[in-house]
């Protein structure tokens, strides 16, 4: 097995008296989809927010690409290539696909020796189209505000944005929530596409069929602790549910 791209070592996060994440270690390798499972309040979102720079953990270390890292803000995490797609997607619904993919990093045309700079919407549209094509994402039009797109399509925009900016690791928080069935399949397909491109994905979910559909490995959390780590092909739904509800626990996990 190759070096892990992301390695979380003995991480703990405490809110007041509550230990939200309790001594959790986790590795993610290149081209791997890891499912992070657990019931509501199991600590999966908190763990992920510590990795994406939203929270700062009290204890533990993060290694990314072999080097120790510490993120003071989400921007720090993005800078090294960790892109997190939350359920709310953080898209500007009033802007079009291209504007969203390039939001905050717009391409500009220089005029009068750089004195005047205008948006290069044509180039941004072209680049957006290429990225979407490479992910086999099809939209009827790219120049309408994305508020007219479906939930799954917006999810795809967020993924395309991360891909365009060369995310090295993608973290997705319950991406199939609030989507219709065909849309869920599309999102899962996109996760497989990312894996094929060598981009590892951490998929946070409590939906077991999703986990079985795309993950290589699953990590189960319960009350802040990691209670199991399984190769997806060598476990089953019944076993995972037992871990998720706390009826079973691996001491070595």
């Amino acid at each position, binding site marked *: 097995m190759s070096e892990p791209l992301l390695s979380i070592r003995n991480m703990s996060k405490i809110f007041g008296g509550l230990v939200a994440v309790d001594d959790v270690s986790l590795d993610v390798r290149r081209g791997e989809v890891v499912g992070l499972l657990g019931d509501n309040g199991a600590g999966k979102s908190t763990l992920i927010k510590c990795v994406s720079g939203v929270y700062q953990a009290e204890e533990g270390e993060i290694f990314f690409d072999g080097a120790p890292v510490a993120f003071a803000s989400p921007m720090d995490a*993005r800078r090294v290539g960790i892109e997190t797609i939350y359920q709310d997607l953080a898209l500007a619904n009033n802007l079009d696909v291209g504007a969203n993919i390039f*939001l*905050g990093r717009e391409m500009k045309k220089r005029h009068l020796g750089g004195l005047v700079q205008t948006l290069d919407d044509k180039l941004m549209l072209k680049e957006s189209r290429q990225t979407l094509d490479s992910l086999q994402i099809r939209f009827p039009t790219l120049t*309408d*505000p994305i*508020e*007219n797109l479906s939930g799954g399509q917006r999810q795809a925009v967020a993924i395309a944005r991360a891909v365009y900016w060369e995310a090295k690791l993608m973290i997705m928080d319950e991406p199939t929530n609030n989507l*219709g069935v065909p849309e869920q399949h599309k999102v899962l397909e996109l996760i497989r596409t990312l894996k094929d491109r060598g981009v590892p994905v951490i998929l946070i979910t409590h939906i077991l069929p999703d986990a079985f559909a795309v993950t290589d490995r699953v990590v189960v959390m319960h009350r802040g602790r990691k209670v199991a780590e399984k190769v997806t092909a060598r476990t089953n739904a019944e076993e995972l549910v037992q871990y998720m509800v706390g009826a079973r626990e691996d001491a070595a996990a």
Partner: protein
Amino acid sequence: MTERASRLAPSHAAAPPGALTPAQRVTLFLSRIWAWVFLGVMVLFFVVAVPLTTGGSVNFLTVRNSQNILVAIIPVLLLGLGQTFVIIAAGIDLSVGWVMSLASVLSALALRGAFNSGVPLFPSVLVGLAAGVGGAALVGFVNGVIIAKLKVPAFIVTLGTSFIVRGVAYLMSENTTVIGLPADIRAYGNDALIYHIGGEGGGLYFLHRPEVGGELLRRMDIILPYPVIVTGFVVAWAMFLLHRTQFGRHTYAIGGSMDAAVRSGIPVDRHIIELYMLSAATSGVAGFLSTLRYTAGSAVIGDPLLLSSIAAVIIGGVSMFGGAGTVIGTVIGALIIAVLTTGLVMLNVDAFWQFIVVGTVVIVAVLIDQSRDLIMARAGGRVRR
């Protein structure tokens, strides 16, 4: 809809094709262009009604009247331009009226001071401009810092500063009016690019007011006064800034989703400060132009204009929730108010009726916007199913 159009009007883009019934399509189309249609119908109405009620002695559609309307919209439009940016970014600036007053006083004091200490006229005027716009921008900076850094709601902050600015403007002016300005600045505030005297003994004159009197003076049309030209440049600049630059894009993004803007790495705090400085600066230009126009600084000049300027912005289709709107919309909004006011006066209707009509139009404008959102939401729901 073309690429360009959708960029210029983010809220007005088409729904996915095929998702709408023909009736919805027509409604949607009308909701997008209603302000233009309304303006056109209103002009048409006055063109017919004004000669009818005056027995043909007065016409609405004359060069003179068109120029009067252009001059009349200047302050409302300038206040509305900055406000357009602020409201698109989901903010509000209630201080624009009093900031305009302060700028008028400041530019009058600075201009007079410079001129009296021996500075030639034109540089003195520039000193007045710098003082007016600079002073205004300083107020905008304070607004922006308190809103962006201290997280006080914009409504409260700008309400507070408008009172403060009002006090400062009164205190700095001499009994509300700054007089004793060089008489020659009248030309800057009132002269025009073109003068046209129709009929016998008339002709075309450029840049300077011809020395005529009596009958010829009565027949003279003043075309494109300098303040109108200045305002035109500010409008063009605002369109460029909002629709073609990164600054504009970020303004829409902040209004569309503050969260998305922050997480995209947009320097949101700095941008908000710049927005309130921009809003104050366009109000400052309005104050400066009024000083030139009346050859005096006035601490009360901007007071009645705040609500009209917000009305123009809303009629122009800027969403009070942020994220949508255009510069040209605000121009149309300001034009609608000015045409309405001028037309009603020419019809000899009591001038107070204008308030009732403008108020109605504002509410109707928002209703039309909401009906559009409703249709889009329904269409969206259908597509998703």
